[in-house]
């Protein structure tokens, strides 16, 4: 009898995974709101990636001065109008997507990297480990995130980097809560008991049995949090603690624009609309992901 096995081809070995992916695409495609979310998120990502090459006035992003053109209403040359420096608002709104994207990714990324390991440890080990982690988490959760972030930024000084640091510090507890509950449930699953009964150690169980089965809710939460993190960063910008003009950032733009309301409405409306669409897009997208990845939790 031959000992070595004929290794099947990639498509044979991954037939199930491929079919699963096709199923995800199929069920995602059946929900109009998920598709709308996907479309918005795609446009957002494309603009973030290629913004500098497609906007009509790339230099306006850095805050060029063109005072002859200031506060012009929307027109064929300036689709969203111009601001008080005469910069093209369309260019600035589009260029700001890049800022928002990396703000969102950093905050959610840091929160995941901090929150997930803590959550898994709390849920899996239980006992004292859990008590300590969860009480610290509770302390963070009991203070409204944005208020805490304000305090941190106030201490560090305003600026977009400090804003991101502050928001990352307040963002991770949600992930601890989410993952802790999941790990707690997984800990008693028979397949984890089976691994323990053959002598598997904690590291192996955590890496192969617990973590891979926690990924769906983490992905769902992360995609929804992208929108919320962008909104929070914009809020900091709006109250003057985040990005500073002339850096293109939606919150900061609205902050300046509010003194020009209502006569020069376009100045505030277009960045506001961009924030609204982005948050909506990530929320719809996250909802759609939850329906396919984590169907149990979506049916209340």
């Amino acid at each position: 009898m031959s000992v070595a096995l004929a290794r099947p081809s990639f498509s044979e070995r991954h037939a199930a995974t491929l079919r699963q992916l096709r199923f995800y695409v199929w069920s995602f495609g059946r929900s109009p709101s998920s598709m709308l979310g996907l479309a918005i998120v795609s446009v957002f990502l494309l603009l973030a990636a290629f913004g500098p090459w497609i906007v009509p006035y790339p230099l306006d992003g850095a805050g060029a001065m063109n005072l002859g053109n200031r506060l012009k209403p929307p027109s064929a040359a300036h689709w969203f109008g111009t601001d008080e420096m005469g910069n093209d608002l369309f260019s600035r709104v589009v260029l700001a997507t890049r800022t928002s994207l990396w703000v969102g990714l950093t905050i959610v990324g840091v929160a995941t990297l901090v929150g997930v390991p803590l959550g898994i440890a709390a849920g899996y080990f239980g006992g004292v480990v859990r008590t300590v982690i969860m009480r610290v988490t509770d302390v963070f959760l009991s203070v409204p995130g944005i208020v805490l972030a304000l305090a941190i930024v106030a201490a560090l000084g305003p600026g977009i980097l400090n804003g991101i640091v502050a928001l990352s510090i307040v963002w991770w507890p949600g992930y601890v809560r989410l993952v802790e509950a999941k790990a707690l449930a997984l800990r008693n699953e028979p397949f984890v008991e089976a691994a323990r009964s053959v002598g598997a150690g904690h590291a192996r169980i955590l890496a192969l049995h617990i973590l891979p089965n926690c990924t769906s809710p983490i992905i769902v939460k992360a995609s929804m949090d992208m929108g919320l993190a962008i909104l929070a960063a914009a809020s900091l910008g709006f109250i003057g603690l985040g990005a500073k003009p002339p850096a293109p950032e939606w919150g900061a733009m609205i902050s300046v624009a509010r003194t020009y309301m209502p006569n020069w409405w376009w100045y505030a409306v277009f960045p506001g609309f961009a924030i609204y669409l982005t948050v909506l897009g990530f929320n719809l997208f996250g909802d759609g992901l939850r329906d396919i990845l984590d169907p149990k939790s979506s049916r209340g």
Partner: protein
Amino acid sequence: MTAPLLEVTGLAKTYPLKGGRAVRAVDGIDLALTPGESLGLVGESGCGKSTVARLLLRLIEPTSGVIRFAGTNIATLSDAALRPFRRDAQIIFQNPHAALNPRRTVFASVAEPLVVQRIASGTELQGRVARLLQQVGLPETFLWRYPHELSGGQKQRVCIARALALEPKLVVLDEPTSALDVSVQAQILDFLQDLRTRFGLTYLFISHNLAVVRQVCDRVAVMYLGRIVEEGPAEQVFAAPRHPYTRALVASVLPPRPGALPDAPLAGDVPNAAEIPPGCRFAPRCPLRMERCTRDDPALEGNAHRVACWAA
């Protein structure tokens, strides 16, 4: 008489509750399994039979008691010292779907014991896993499949292959066929019988289904509310049960025949394991209750056929 493979004395598991109360899930049981035999552990939900399974394998920590396996008390060993025992004793769970990690292939699941115990790797590992699948009657093409592509019976066969990987002496089967259809259950029961004779395995077979236990087991122990109330040769216990609870259980079994609706032999529900009645724990529901039963707790007495009842 041969030395027992597994000998349990005074095994107990208590879960403390607030207010000084406690759930006595397993409340002092004695058991012995000789090599090669098959002992059935029967009882209704909440009687503690699944807790016993997990205690015996040290998946949960016993509150007290001795678990002697091949002469060593494993109840107090450290995780590291338990490693050899982890080869010799395996468990098969009720729900084969939950017993396999949905994110891992059949190969990864069956190979896990061999990898963890550092017994095989590389092509040798692949060959062994393929042979194990063959032994449980599954084609080699299943190696790269995921659990959700398999039927319930096929998943249970994968679990059996995983349990056999380390060539264990003792296999604890916790309701291994309860989640399966009868036609598949029959296949698996037949197969388990065959394995036992082929590899000289010792079974602790936990089930709520008396007819299934009668098919597979030589001896049977009946649990009620954390205690064994009757224990003996399967034939005797089912044909001539001595404990009133066993009698009620046997009378409740519905045979596959028309018109056989039993009179409900027991009234009421099983009490909560946090409020075990004083005296004999079955007394409040017992048709034979005497004054003494509510006062003194009967012990399991007898030789081959033991029973814990004042009226027996």
